[in-house]
């Protein structure tokens, strides 16, 4: 037998010198990040800077707007639209709470009792989103119309008398009332609550429930002590995904509300589209909303990180 010494060229693939290899390795993550970074710069950073800059300008459509560091725009933005801020706040918080109350049982049921129907049931949750947001909202006009079965039943049960007394409905009508706005919002944002909830509930090992039962928990305490704490990431994710778009939403208020249900979004739209000098104040309101939402969300997340929320 003859020993054949393998040539080194045949053994190893040709490699670039080490310095070049290191450079390439350092560049790879940046190359991969590039499309995302570009996207963020063009569609996030630039618009934000534009609206911040617009918020301290003065002028009108005909003469153009000039950057004059006119901070008084903010005084207007904060003091003049109190009702709208209040409405946006109340409707979005109520919408988030209702979405959680409706969505948690649905997500719980699908995650733990869905069995082989899980995927189908989750698809059914999402399917309505295949229809346009606007059309779905307009559909609620029919559901909440005065002669609709729902409204007639509520009226017959004298529920509307109570809600009208509380200011949520108007007379015998549900449509064009704060209640209708909140109904539309809950309907539109419900999937955003259910999806993250389902994801985090589905990850919980059902054997932990058995361990709970074994350790003196009835069904409710098992949920309270085991399921709920373990599903908190889903609760936080779901409520954020609902609250953040809900607070800026104005389609529901526009289509299902009345002149007294104005929200911030409607005012911004008004100022941008129907007021020749409205640009700067509209931008200022946008910035106030962004910062306000950011502060709320940050403090919520900080609380959520601890066990205060549970």
């Amino acid at each position, binding site marked *: 037998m003859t020993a054949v010494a393998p040539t080194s060229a045949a053994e190893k693939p040709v490699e670039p010198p080490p310095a070049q290899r290191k450079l390439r390795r350092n560049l790879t993550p940046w190359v991969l990040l590039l499309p995302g970074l570009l996207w963020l710069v063009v569609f996030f950073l630039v618009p934000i800077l534009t609206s911040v800059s617009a918020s301290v300008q003065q002028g009108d459509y005909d003469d153009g707007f000039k950057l004059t560091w006119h901070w008084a725009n903010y005084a207007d933005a904060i003091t003049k639209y109190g009702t709208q801020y209040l409405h946006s706040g109340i409707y979005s918080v109520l919408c988030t709470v209702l979405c959680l109350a409706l969505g948690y049982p649905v997500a719980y049921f699908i995650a733990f009792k869905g069995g082989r129907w899980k995927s189908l049931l989750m698809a059914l949750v999402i399917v309505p989103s295949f229809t346009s947001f606007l059309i779905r909202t307009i559909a609620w006009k029919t559901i909440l119309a005065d002669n609709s079965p729902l409204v007639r039943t509520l009226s017959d049960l004298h529920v509307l008398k109570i809600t009208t007394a509380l200011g949520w409905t108007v007379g015998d009508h549900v449509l064009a009332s704060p209640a209708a706005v909140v109904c539309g919002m809950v309907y539109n944002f419900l999937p955003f609550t259910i999806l993250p909830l389902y994801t985090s509930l589905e990850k919980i*090992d059902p*054997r*932990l429930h*058995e*361990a709970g*039962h*074994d*350790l*003196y*928990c*009835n069904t409710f*305490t098992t949920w309270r*002590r*085991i399921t709920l*704490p*373990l599903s908190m990431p889903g609760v936080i994710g779901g409520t954020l995904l609902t609250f953040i778009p809900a607070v800026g939403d104005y389609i529901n208020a526009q289509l299902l509300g009345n002149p007294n249900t104005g929200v911030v979004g409607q005012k911004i739209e008004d100022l941008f589209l129907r007021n020749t000098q409205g640009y700067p104040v509209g931008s200022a309101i946008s910035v106030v909303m962004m910062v306000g939402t950011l502060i709320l969300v940050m403090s919520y997340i900080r609380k959520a990180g601890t066990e205060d929320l549970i």
Partner: protein
Amino acid sequence: MSSNDVLGRTEGGDLRLVGLTKRYGSFTAVDDLDLTVPQGSFFALLGASGCGKTTTLRMVSGLEEPTIGQIFLGDEDVTDRKPYRRPVNTVFQNYALFPHLDIYENVAFGLRRRGRKDVRKPVEEMLDLVELGHLAKRKPNQLSGGQQQRIALARALINQPQVLLLDEPLGALDLKLRRQMQIELKRIQLEVGLTFVHVTHDQEEAMTMADTIAVMNAGRIEQMGSPAELYENPRTTFVANFLGQSNLIPGTVEGVTGETATISAHGQRLTLDAARCPVTSGPVILGVRPEKVQIALSAEEVPAGSNQLAGGVVLDTSFIGVSTQYLVKLPSGEEISVFEQNTGREIQRPGAEVVVFWDPSQGFGLEGGQDIEAGADIEEVAA
């Protein structure tokens, strides 16, 4: 140390299962089971997967409802009680520790749910018992498998259950750790003196720890007794094969004289203690454990009075160090395994012609007509 020092437990009584049956559709998982587990014993339910042992355990814990039958703890019928109202706790197979709680809170969980305020002392005592007091502030996923196992045990034990159920508690551990935990579990059981019901497919594990083993097969208890009793006197081929290995030789009882039963098998005359032979005539299966069989090179070497089967050829030899395992093929076609202690004797190579023999008092008899292979292949899969 007596149980009352650690747990201050009240008297409970035996665990009794009466006519317990569980059916899933047309499948019967547990079939008319009658069983009494004496208080304070370490009881093992041994069987292959799917034999109904885990279902039995889950019915005792209340996580599964029996189709028919009753469960008693002492004199009390607990059949219809919810799991959280039974004085029974489980150590789950995957431990099922609560991932959001630290070790301390995991152990304290049961006490807190029952409204006890001063949990510090019992929790610390329990963590000391499992020797993991220093890990109290860790989360379960920061612990190794063996540590999680001990925490699962502590979490169940702290509640002073009348019966502690262990569902394959060592299944996820590697062999060395499993050995260590077997000894540990036995120590803790002796220390706290509670009734432990242990479900396992590992016959060695069951034999190491349990006072009493019930071998389950197809939803029924095949045989019950102390490990030695089951090993020395199996009553069925399933038990003979599942618990260790057996050489099973079908034959016919020729007659019983005094304390000796004479059996003919493949034209050879073998004898057996009459007391260990279940029949007085007709077909019988003679069993003998491999470590009780010896080999000789010629019939002259065989001590007088031994059972012997001549004309064997060594098929396979495996030298394991402490012993040598032979597989000997007899002229009848049967294969006999022999474990020979390493006493320095010459090792026989495959092909060598040998005589196998054993002391007649070491054999056992089984009723004829059973499947000789029953339980043999299952054990290999499970082990």
